[in-house]
C-alpha cells in the first residue's frame, strides 16, 4: 500500500513530469496483467513516443464497452483496445469512435476493410481436449452429437462470455436454420454452462469434462509455458469460427496524434511479436521473426467462419433464443 503513496508524492514533487503527454488506453484486465502483453508493449512504445502510455484495465471486452457507454464523451480514454467483431457494431453506434485512416497488410484468413477499428490479433475457437484422456476426439459437431452421452464438454454462456458468444455464432454460421437442432443434440453432452472462460477451463483441467470450448492456440500455452504436450484442439469439419480483436481511437481524444502513432505502432513488429506468447493469439500482422516455435504444432482449420459486425449484431438475439431453447429441451 505504501508504494502508490510514494509514487504519488514523487509525481507531485516533480512538476516537469506533468509536461509529458499521457496516452490513455482502455483495455481488458488480462492485457495489463504482469504476464500479459501490456508491460512489454508499454515499455516499447514509451521508448519511441516521448509520452506516458497508461493502460487502464476494465474487466473484459464487453465490460470495456459498457464502461465507455457509461462515461460517454467525457471518457479519459484515447484508445480502446480489446473489442472484438461481435462488439464493434454496438461500439460504432455510440458515435464515440473516429476513423483510423490506416491501411495495412493483414495476415488474417479474411479480408479487413473496417474504417474505424483495426485488428491487432485473432484466433479460432475450438474444443480443447487432453490426448491422454480422449484418444479419438470428435471431428465435427455431428460427430460430437453421435458420441456416447458420457463424452462431456463444458461451454460458456454467450451472454456473459466472449468464447461462449463465439460458439453460439459458430453453430449458427455452420448450420443456419438447423442451429436449434444442433443445440438440442449437443445438450446431453454439455456438462454445464459457465459464466466465463476461466471457470470452464478450470473444470476441464480438473478432469470434470473431456473437452472445453477455448481457442486453437490454447495448446500452445501448455506446450510453451509448461512444456506439456498433452493438450490439443479438435479440428471440426464444419470449419472454425474466428475471433478478431480490434482497437479504435476515440473522437474526443485530446491526444489525436499520439493515438494515431499508437495505432501504427500496434501493427509493427515491436507490438505484434509480443502477442503470441502473452495473449496466446495469432498476431494480426505476422512479425519478421515469424511465429514462435510450438505454434507450428497447432491445427489450422481449412475453413474460417465469421459474421461481419453488422450480421453478428442482427442475428444475435435469434441465435440466443435457439441456443437457450435447444439446450433446455
Amino acid at each position, binding site marked *: *500500500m505504501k508504494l*502508490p503513496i510514494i509514487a504519488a508524492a514523487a509525481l507531485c514533487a516533480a512538476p516537469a513530469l506533468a509536461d509529458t503527454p499521457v496516452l490513455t488506453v482502455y483495455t481488458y*484486465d*488480462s492485457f*495489463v*496483467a*504482469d*504476464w*500479459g502483453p501490456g508491460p512489454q508493449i508499454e515499455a516499447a512504445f514509451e521508448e519511441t513516443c516521448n509520452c506516458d502510455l497508461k493502460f*487502464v*484495465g*476494465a*474487466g473484459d471486452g*464487453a*465490460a470495456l*464497452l*459498457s464502461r465507455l*457507454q*457509461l*462515461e460517454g464523451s*467525457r471518457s479519459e480514454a484515447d484508445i480502446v483496445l480489446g473489442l472484438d467483431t461481435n462488439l464493434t457494431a*454496438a461500439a460504432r453506434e455510440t458515435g464515440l469512435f473516429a476513423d483510423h485512416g490506416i491501411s495495412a497488410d493483414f495476415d488474417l484468413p479474411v479480408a479487413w476493410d473496417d474504417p474505424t477499428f483495426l485488428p491487432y490479433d485473432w484466433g479460432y475457437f475450438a474444443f480443447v481436449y487432453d490426448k491422454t484422456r480422449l484418444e479419438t476426439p470428435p471431428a465435427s459437431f455431428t460427430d460430437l452429437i453421435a458420441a456416447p452421452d458420457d463424452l*462431456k464438454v463444458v461451454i460458456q*454462456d*454467450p*451472454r*456473459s462470455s466472449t468464447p461462449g458468444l463465439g460458439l453460439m455464432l459458430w453453430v449458427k454460421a455452420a448450420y443456419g436454420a438447423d442451429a436449434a437442432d444442433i443445440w438440442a443434440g449437443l*445438450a446431453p453432452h*454439455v*456438462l*454445464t*454452462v*459457465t*459464466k*466465463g*472462460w*476461466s*471457470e470452464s*477451463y*478450470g*473444470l476441464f*483441467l*480438473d*478432469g*470434470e*469434462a473431456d473437452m472445453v470450448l477455448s481457442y486453437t492456440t*490454447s495448446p500452445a*500455452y*501448455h506446450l510453451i*509455458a509448461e512444456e506439456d504436450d498433452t493438450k490439443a484442439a479438435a479440428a471440426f469439419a464444419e470449419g472454425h469460427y474466428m475471433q478478431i480483436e480490434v482497437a479504435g481511437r476515440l473522437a474526443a481524444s485530446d491526444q489525436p496524434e499520439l493515438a494515431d502513432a499508437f495505432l501504427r505502432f500496434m501493427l509493427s513488429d515491436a507490438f505484434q511479436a509480443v502477442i503470441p506468447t502473452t495473449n*496466446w493469439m495469432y498476431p494480426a500482422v505476422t512479425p519478421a521473426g515469424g511465429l514462435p516455435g510450438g505454434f507450428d504444432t497447432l491445427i489450422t482449420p481449412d475453413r474460417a467462419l465469421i459474421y461481419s459486425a453488422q450480421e453478428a449484431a442482427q442475428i444475435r438475439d435469434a441465435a440466443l433464443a435457439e*441456443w*437457450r431453447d435447444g*439446450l*433446455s429441451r
Partner: protein
Amino acid sequence: MARRAQPLGAALPLGLAAGALVLALSLGTLGAVAWRAEGGTGLSPADWAAIRFSLLQAVLSAGLSCLLAIPVARALARRRFPGRGLLITLLGAPLILPVIVGVLGLLAVFGRNGMLSAVLDPFGLGPVNIYGLHGVVLAHVFFNLPMATRLILQGWLAIPSERFRLAAALGFGPGDVARRLERPMLREVLPGAFLVTFLICITSFAVVLTLGGGPRATTVELAIYHAFRFEFDLGRAALLSLVQFGLCAAAALLALGAALPTGFSGGLDRPLARWDADSSVLRLQDAAVLSLAAGFLMVPLMLVVVRGLPGLADLPPAVWQAAGRSVAVALASAVLCVGLALPIALAATRLGGARGAALQGTGMLAIAASPLVMGTGLFILLFPVANPVALALPVTALVNAAMSLPFALRALTPAVAEAARSHGRLADSLGLRGLARLRLVTLPRLRRPLGFVLGLAAALSMGDLGVIALFADPDQATLPLQLYALMGAYRMEQAAGAALLLLVLSLGLFWIFDRGGRVNAAL
C-alpha cells in the same frame, strides 16, 4: 407510565442516519441506473424463467440448510468437548469462503473426477453427477448450513442457563425440554435464520450456477448481469433489480410475521449445564450429527488446502500485494459495518414496534440489492464529480459493509433487545444513560455478537468479488480479482495457491475477531 421506559439519546439520530445511508446505497443506486436508462424493454420469458428458478432453488436451499442446522446446533448447544470452540470456528468457514474456492472444493469431492466418484468407481457406480438443480442446492447448503447453525445456536445460547437448571429440578426429560424451552426458541429464531439463508440464496450469482448444468440455472442476479453485459439495457437491469427487491421484501414480511417472541426473562449468565441430555443414546446421536456435518463441511476445505499448497510457493508478487489490499479493505469494511449496525440496532430496539422494525428492515435492504446495480449506480453518481476508479477501494469497503449489514443486524439486534429486556429497567432505575449505559450495560452483553459481526464482515469482504470488478484497475486488484486473473491466464496452479491464501486470510480474520469476542465467554 408517561415517561419512556428508555431514553432515546444519540442512538436514534445516528441509527436513522445509518439507515438513510443504506437506503441511498441500495435503492438510490437503483434509481441512478433507472434514470440513466434509455427506454428499455420489459421482462422477457427468459426473465420470468429466471425469477421462477431463483425462487425454487432459494426455497429448497434455505429449507434444507435450516432443517439440517437444527440437530447440528442442538448438538453444539448441549455438548462440551475439547476442540468445540475450534470446531465452531471451522464450521463457520464455508460461509466466509470466497464462492469460487468453495465450489472448487465441492467439485473435488462431488465432481465427476472427485473423491466420491473415485470411491464409487470400483463398485461400477458413478461418476457422480453434481450438475443440475441438486448441485446448486448442495452448494448452497454447504455455504449456508454454518450460518443457519450459528444463528440457531445463538438462539439456544440465549436461553438462560437457569431455565435448564429449573427444568432439571422439575425432572424434565429431553422431550419436555424440547417442548417447553427449545420449540418456543426455534419459533423465534427459525424464521429469521430461514430468511437470511433464503436471501443469500435468492441473490446467488454465477459461480454456484456453474453447478447448474445449463441455461435453465439462471437467477435474477445473473439475468441482471446479462442485461448489463449482453444488451447494455440499464432499464431492464433496474427493473430486474426491483423484482429482486420485491421478492426479498415479500419473503421478509412472511418470515417476520412468522416469528414469535419467546419472552424468556433475564438470567445471571451462569455457565450452562444440561442434565436433560445426559443419556448415552443422545450422546451418540450428537456425536454422529457433528461428525457428519464436520465431514461435509471440512473435507472440501481440506482438498482446497491440499490443492493449493504446491502453488503457494511461487505466487507472483502481484498476488501478495492484492492480498494486502484485500486485508485493508476487509478491516475497513468490518469497522464500517459495525459503525452502521450498532446505531441501527440500538435505535430499532429503542423505537420498538413497527417503526423499529421498519428501521431494521431498511438495514436489511442491502441483501436484496444487486452488487452490479449498486456498483453501476455508484459509478453513474460518482463519475460527474470524481474518478470512480480512484475511489475503487473505499467504495468497495463501503459496499461490502452494507452487504454484511443484514447478518450483523441479525446477530446484534436480538442481543441488544435482550440486553434491554433483561437489564433495561435496572439501568433506568440507576439512571444510567448515554455512553455510560452503552459501556457498562449494553456492550458487555454484545461482546460475543460484536466479535462475530466484525469477523464475519471482514471475512465476507475478503472474499467478495462484486463491486470491485466493476471499478478496479488491475493495479488495485483485490485477492479474489487476482485469483480470477490467474485463472483467466491458464495459471490454475497459482490460482489454487491464491485460493488457499484467500481461505487462510478470510478464516484468520474471522477467527481473530470472533475469538476476541469470546474471551471469558463459555461458547
